[in-house]
């Protein structure tokens, strides 16, 4: 199509009865570019911080398999994506110049031709969400590491590198790496692995027995000595890994030590005891549990939050294994599952099982208001399902 001339523009102004003296000398003739109707461009509305990230040269990635809702990930955050419709037409035009710039740049002449690159009636909206990390554990549990003697370890089929995880998990890189640390995953031959629980307990037991026989203080366990004494039984990397998982590393006078984490060790031993039966008599369990933990450690029921649940309504009182990481990730599904296990919950009991659902500034109370109904039972506030459970 022939380009408009300045004379044609002026003629239009005259017909429109606009006074050129009231307008800037430069006109922009907008026409639709060759790709304009192609639908290859789309708009993404940016949450605070993302614009700066892009300008700093960092990437945003859209992640999700065909059966998953897509999420957008920056370096350290995850966002749900949703289409927003406007009733208006949005045209996007390259090469924006402000009126001030148009005034100032005398070299522009009196006519500019701008091509509209694309147009749309909708755009992508973002909303910060919890990273979808349950899949991470699920993937790594496909092939837990059972130790160097295990014959299973030959195939690489169910093994995942960092890159594999980045392409499969709907979360930002930082969120994924952080979660790997939280679940005590370790890298073995380039693949991220979770330890098989029995193997993990075997390693822990080596360490706690050594601490006991050497009479080391639980707050200062020397790395070198552990590696020396246990190196013939297990790979050194595994000994160090178990110390890192169950202790806090520190350096004193150039030497590496670990302050053993009492709560975590007691919790692991409880899991080991509880996983062998559907439920236990509470007082019997508490006795066996205390006897099973290392000398100098004290067991407390609050160490088992999110791991086990006490049934105070049964006679005698019982305790059973209920791991929060085994429950659904979706909010509604999580609550359905919890109310299926127990009809009425106190806030104290349910909190460890819904804490991880809280969004950035959300409280457990807000979640309960949304997904549960409260009532009084024997003078205590309890929560039950909003909907009838079939």
């Amino acid at each position: 199509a022939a380009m408009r001339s300045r004379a044609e523009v002026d003629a239009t102004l005259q017909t429109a009865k606009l006074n050129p003296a009231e307008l800037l000398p430069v006109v922009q003739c907008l026409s639709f570019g060759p790709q304009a109707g192609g639908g290859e461009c789309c708009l993404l509305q940016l949450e605070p911080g993302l614009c700066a990230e892009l300008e700093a040269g960092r990437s945003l990635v859209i992640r999700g398999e065909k059966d998953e809702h897509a999420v957008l990930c920056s370096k350290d955050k995850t966002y749900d994506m949703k289409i927003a419709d406007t009733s208006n037409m949005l045209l996007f035009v390259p090469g924006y110049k402000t009126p001030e710039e148009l005034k100032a740049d005398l070299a522009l002449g009196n006519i500019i031709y701008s091509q509209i690159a694309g147009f749309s009636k909708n755009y992508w909206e973002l909303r910060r969400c919890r990273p979808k990390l349950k899949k991470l554990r699920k993937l790594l549990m496909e092939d837990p590491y059972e130790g160097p003697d295990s014959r299973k370890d030959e195939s690489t089929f169910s093994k995942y590198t960092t890159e594999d995880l980045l392409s499969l998990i709907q979360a930002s890189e930082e969120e994924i790496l952080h979660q790997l640390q939280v679940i005590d995953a370790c890298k073995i031959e380039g693949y991220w692995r979770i330890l098989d629980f029995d193997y993990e307990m075997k390693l822990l037991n080596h360490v706690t027995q050594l601490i006991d026989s050497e009479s080391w203080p639980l707050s200062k366990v020397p790395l070198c000595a552990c590696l020396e004494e246990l190196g013939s039984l297990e790979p050194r990397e595994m000994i160090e890994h178990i110390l890192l998982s169950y202790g806090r590393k520190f350096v004193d006078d150039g030497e590496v030590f670990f302050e053993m984490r009492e709560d975590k060790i007691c919790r692991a031993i409880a899991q080991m005891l509880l996983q062998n039966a559907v439920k236990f008599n509470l007082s019997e369990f508490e006795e066996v549990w205390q006897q099973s933990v290392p000398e100098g450690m004290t067991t407390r029921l609050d160490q088992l939050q999110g791991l086990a649940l006490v049934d105070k309504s049964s006679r005698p009182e019982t305790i059973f294994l209920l791991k929060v990481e085994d429950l659904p990730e979706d909010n509604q599904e999580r609550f359905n599952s919890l109310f299926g296990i127990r009809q009425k919950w106190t806030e104290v009991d349910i909190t460890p099982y819904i804490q991880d659902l809280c969004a950035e500034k959300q409280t457990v109370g807000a979640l309960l208001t949304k997904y549960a109904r409260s009532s009084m039972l024997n003078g205590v506030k309890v929560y039950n399902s909003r909907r009838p459970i079939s």
Partner: protein
Amino acid sequence: SGGTGALAQWVLVELQGEVEPRQSGDLAGSLLGDLHYTCEGVPVLIVGHHILYGKVVQLEKPFAVLVKQGGAPQPSPTEPHGHYTVTALIKTKLLFKTRPKPIITHVPKKV
């Protein structure tokens, strides 16, 4: 994925209603209209027989313009799977929401 080097700055032009080509056929290549600014910086868009007065709005939430890679079939409107490149950022929009003033082109001849 993001861009390397400085990202281009584009502008959004927001219009009410639909945009239709004057002649039948594709929109591609066809003229939209003339964009002027008054001396005070008010954008004025002449589209067909309409004069649209607008305003320059700094966007609270800027937009990124994503271009789908690979020339694959059109992305589904509900799921943006695939690879995208950020081509440009949009921090400003020209909002034309005032009722268009029609341009009267036919002036009856004086007898």
